[in-house]
């Protein structure tokens, strides 16, 4: 992150306060880091069993942004975090996500910066490596990104598609939005409703998991078509199409559709 230009002002590891890593001071608590260094964002890499506590600590410190990278946080922990989010102003991105990047400026996350190029496409995705794939497909046609937000593959997340769409809609650098969804839940369907009513910028959509059988979790904790058949890729693709979104079947087709729009 430092290499990429992000201003990392502090590290927090309980018990390691007073040490220094790569020239950055380490504190025992987030509260101290905020007090001493004016930190306004945090990235959580804490192991799953303790991650929700670290997120809660960030929310309590009133940060503007908390990005939770950790995969495998128990859902019941996230139910509590979700409850707490309603009481604070902090934006949570993730968990189980690669983070946020504005190519050429800064990143708060773990994506490898060199595959991204700056450009006009705002990309929001539930998946990490699929994001890389799409950025690569876009890049092969010379298309860069304004910002890329990985919202994470868990069933309970902070920033959702609608929050990200709203941010891209307000972002002057973004001309075209790419929404990368996957099976499970109904976030894409809700995003489609929002797009129909509010989006002025064109949206290209992609949904992973068309071949996923019901009742099976496809890697991500949130990627599951229910036994009763809700959360299917079909349902999401139809909802997006009905809302006027250009829906692609392959990553290369995403790039082609975006190319027509920029």
């Amino acid at each position: 992150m430092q290499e990429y230009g992000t201003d990392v002002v502090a590290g927090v590891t309980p018990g390691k306060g007073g040490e220094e890593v790569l020239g950055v001071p380490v504190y025992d608590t987030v509260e101290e880091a905020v007090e001493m260094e004016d930190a306004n964002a945090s990235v959580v890499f804490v192991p799953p069993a303790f991650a929700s506590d670290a997120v809660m600590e960030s929310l309590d410190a009133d940060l503007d942004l908390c990005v939770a990278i950790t995969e495998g946080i128990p859902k019941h922990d996230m139910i509590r975090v979700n409850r707490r989010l309603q009481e604070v102003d902090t934006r949570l991105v993730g968990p189980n996500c690669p983070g946020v990047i504005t190519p050429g400026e800064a990143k708060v996350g773990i994506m490898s910066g060199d595959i991204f190029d700056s450009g006009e496409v705002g990309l929001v995705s539930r998946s990490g490596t699929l994001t890389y794939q799409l950025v690569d497909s876009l890049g092969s046609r010379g298309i860069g990104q304004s910002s890329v937000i990985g919202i994470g593959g868990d069933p309970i997340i902070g920033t959702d598609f609608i929050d990200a769409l709203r941010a891209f809609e307000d972002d002057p650098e973004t001309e075209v939005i790419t929404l990368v969804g996957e099976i499970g839940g109904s976030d894409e369907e809700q995003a489609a409703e929002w797009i129909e009513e509010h989006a002025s910028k064109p949206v290209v959509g992609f949904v992973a998991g068309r071949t996923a059988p019901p009742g099976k979790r496809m890697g991500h904790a949130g990627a599951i078509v229910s036994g009763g058949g809700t959360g299917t890729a079909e349902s999401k693709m139809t909802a997006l199409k009905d809302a006027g979104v250009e829906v692609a079947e392959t990553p290369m087709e995403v790039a082609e559709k975006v190319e027509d729009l920029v």
Partner: protein
Amino acid sequence: MRLHEYQAKQVFADAGIPTPEGRVAGTPEEAREIAEEIGGEVAVKAQVHVGGRGKAGGIKLASTPDEAYTVADEILGMEIKGKLTEEVLVEEAVDIDDELYVGVTLDRGEGEAVAMVSSRGGVNIEEVAEEYPEAIAKEHVDPAYDLLGYQNRRVVYGAGVDREVARDVSGVLDTLYTLWSGSDADDAEINPLVVTGDGDVVAADAVFNIDDSALYRQPELAEMEEEAFDDPFEAKASDKGFDYVRLSGDVGIIGNGAGLVMTTLDLVDHYGGSPANFLDIGGGAKADRVRDALSLVFEDDNVEAVVFNIFGGITRCDEVAEGINEALEEFDELPKPLVVRLTGTNEEEGRKLLTSKVEVEQSLEGAVQRTVELAGGDS
């Protein structure tokens, strides 16, 4: 993790929810013994994770121990929607006067629990929700306060449950919520909760699904996991720590990252092939992980060709290539054709390093098309 019906019933019974007397059997002889112990009519029920077991012939009644032997013999070994039945639950038959639904599940959109009761039990609750939404009463649960007494009463009365059994149903719902909340459950459901001719309530079926990410702090439930898998490949993959799902096609798929692997499956289908599995090898790709993943997929007799798709970010492609080479050292000749696609950090070095035993493709689309071709396309 999804518990089998007999496991879920054990957990519910231990918490005080009335369940029929019964035990699980792996052979017809055991089924007869259990039926003798119980006495009277018994139900013999296939223990497989599929909906609509009854319609598929996986649930039968038997009025004598000998009949229990006969129907158990029929059901054991039966394939129900592709799942082999290895165990049956033999339990006392329930005298049904009315059937209700009682459940607690996670509403992921709201990020909180929802408690539900319906007077239309015994059928797929999602269908009821579509056709008769008024027949289901729901309450969302604020995690700060848990399920409150008045909320519980509101769903039970709201669903139109008979006054004579309302208190019992409330008790069951309360216990279900406590179990849900204390066991890191995704779903805790009873469908149907039977009202007997004598006016008692009995859990005739039971669903208890636990969050995989929380099994580390639910040791007793985690112990039941081994028995809960109904595919040997899935059990082995779980042992090795892979995210793996077995499908019925002939193109084996290994990749890194859930979304990318899902997309690879979709592309196999898009190009006329049929995926044999989903296997997410996760971050990094050390030789032993690669070897474990490859042997698992090679072992599957359905697989005709394998695509290995890695997008290197933090993971460097040259490291992955070395992992693949090392993993393939033990094979003089690959048991099945393997197409490798490496992209991302240090991709060129990676591709150059790769052994000649594998075919190398540069694009995702190219790799998938080539693998589908190698699999012969006729699954």
